[in-house]
């Protein structure tokens, strides 16, 4: 009868919800970064409360502009720091910085069944472990910090089943791009999304996070990946807390259901300037698409599996002389792992630039801004005009394997060509 979104919200309010209901939901966790938190602090200070509702449930995670590249960024960073100190919230200062959506589940700060409404649109990432995660704005964030609850309209749910047998090198990124290409960027507008089927069941957790992360790119509220033993194992390794891992009922009511046939599915690429502008990689090889920059990282693809895949493709290869390859680990733990396991050596040997953990080049303001007319292949989640730099630049979204292979040849390239 019920979808995961309905079960989660029903349990939270200790009642039964149906789509369309507006409920005030207790918030288990909320977080903000340098862009979204300072305006939330301004609003928070207008509320007649002395402190945040629960310091352990509020995380201040500078990741967009840290280390600060300019005066504006350091002003924002210091505002975040001052607030975190004053209210004794969780805080990850420079030196421990990580990308928030990589760090939060990695450290077990949230667990299945939680509701996490946070000031970043990619908070939907956490549906990969059964958390009702969703982005909100700064005023909502202020209210959540003050009251520990927020209003929410219970969403309908859209379900995707991934079946068939994709070709080698197809990852979670390719599956989610295929789904967005199918339904468009408003295909799940204001709805929760569920991802299931045998192809998703075979994915490692890191790739499930990638899928949930891009739910907002089809307009979705949050994106749950069907849970299994792998989900439990991931969570149990990171927390001792009790949790509720909800599966959808077999006869749950969905607003829409889609079956994505993955037989012979190739790596997928989102062409400029819209995420739903998806093509199979082979369609972009004649004429060739030359690239000036390749980016591997971000809340979409800055996890362990992504870094390992990149290393596998780059090993023994050299980045094309005309390409800048930027690799950004999603967390400090991963930065260390890269050093300890020799991935850093592989990246540097190939000619990549290794960057500090965080959001990286995604929005063109911390690092790797594109010049006029330049083209990037990026593992990030948005390719709207001007996002990574100049208005006339272009971004193609792809998997870490495709981004790494393209860095080697200087054009959009299938990983099997170089690895």
């Amino acid at each position: 009868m019920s979808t995961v979104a309905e079960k989660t919200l029903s349990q939270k309010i200790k009642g039964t919800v149906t789509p369309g209901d507006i409920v005030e939901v207790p918030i288990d966790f909320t977080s903000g970064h340098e862009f979204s938190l300072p305006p939330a602090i301004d609003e928070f200070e207008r509320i007649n409360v002395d402190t945040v509702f629960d310091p352990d449930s509020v995380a201040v995670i500078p990741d967009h502009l840290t280390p600060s590249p300019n005066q504006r960024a350091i002003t924002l960073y210091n505002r975040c720091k001052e607030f975190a100190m004053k209210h004794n919230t969780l805080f990850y200062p420079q030196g421990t910085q990580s990308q928030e959506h990589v760090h939060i589940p990695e450290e077990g700060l949230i667990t299945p069944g939680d509701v996490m409404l946070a000031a970043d649109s990619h908070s939907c990432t956490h549906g990969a472990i059964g958390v009702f995660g969703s982005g909100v704005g700064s005023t909502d964030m202020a209210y959540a910090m003050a009251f520990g609850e927020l209003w929410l309209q219970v969403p309908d749910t859209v379900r995707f089943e991934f079946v068939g047998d994709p070709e080698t090198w197809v990852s979670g990124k390719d599956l989610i791009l295929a789904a967005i290409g199918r339904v468009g960027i408003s295909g799940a507008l204001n709805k929760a999304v569920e991802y299931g089927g045998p192809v998703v069941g075979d994915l490692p957790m890191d790739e499930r996070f990638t899928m949930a992360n891009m739910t907002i790119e089809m307009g979705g509220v949050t994106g749950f990946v069907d849970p299994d033993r792998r989900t439990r194992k991931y969570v149990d390794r990171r927390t001792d807390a009790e949790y509720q891992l909800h599966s959808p009922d077999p006869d749950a009511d969905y607003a829409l259901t889609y079956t994505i046939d993955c037989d012979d599915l190739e790596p997928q690429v989102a062409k400029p300037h819209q995420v739903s502008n998806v093509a199979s990689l082979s369609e972009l090889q004649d004429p060739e698409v030359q690239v000036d920059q390749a980016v591997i990282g971000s809340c979409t693809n800055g996890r362990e599996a992504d870094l390992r895949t990149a290393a596998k493709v780059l090993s023994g290869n050299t980045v094309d002389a005309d390409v800048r390859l930027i690799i950004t680990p999603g967390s400090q733990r991963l930065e260390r792992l890269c050093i300890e396991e020799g991935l850093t050596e592989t990246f540097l040997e190939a000619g990549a630039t290794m960057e500090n953990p965080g959001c990286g080049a995604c929005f063109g303001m911390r690092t790797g801004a594109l010049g006029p007319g330049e083209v990037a292949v990026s593992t990030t989640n948005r390719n709207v005009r001007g996002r990574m730099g100049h208005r006339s630049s272009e971004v193609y979204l792809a998997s870490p394997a495709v981004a790494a292979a393209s860095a080697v040849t200087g054009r959009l390239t299938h990983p099997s060509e170089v690895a």
Partner: protein
Amino acid sequence: MSTAFLFGDNIDTDLIAPTTADEDKTLVELCMSGVDPSFHEKFGEGDVVVAGENFGCGSSRETAPLSLRRLGADAIIASSFARIFYRNAINIGLPVFEIADATAKFSQGDDVVVDRSNGVISNESSGISYSAPSHPAFLEEIIDAGGLIEYGNRKIDRRDGHSE
């Protein structure tokens, strides 16, 4: 009387307010610059934006509705809104109205009258009025309070036993 400025489907937050727009001046000057860099010179106090499906998709940055409000937008009328943008607009007191096929019902430069309290949008140029679905009662309460922060402060007053 407001002048309608028309936009298509899927106008995202980076187009409405790029990441470089974050202060009073840049919020105004860069408003809608992703679609039309000279938008801020043409759009005046009290004018309205009319758009297609999924207006405000993308980032959660509240600078998107804020830039439109700072530039003087009286209301945004769209076929549909992205959820975060819709929340943000209500939270900061920028009226948003959903009218099906909005872009087919208005043309660039049309004279428009917005009756906020009754949710009636009149296209004076075509002579046709449209009624937008009313907000759920809970959202009306937030709007009536003057925004989410004021709503929260009222809640504290009630909890502490102060009369409103």
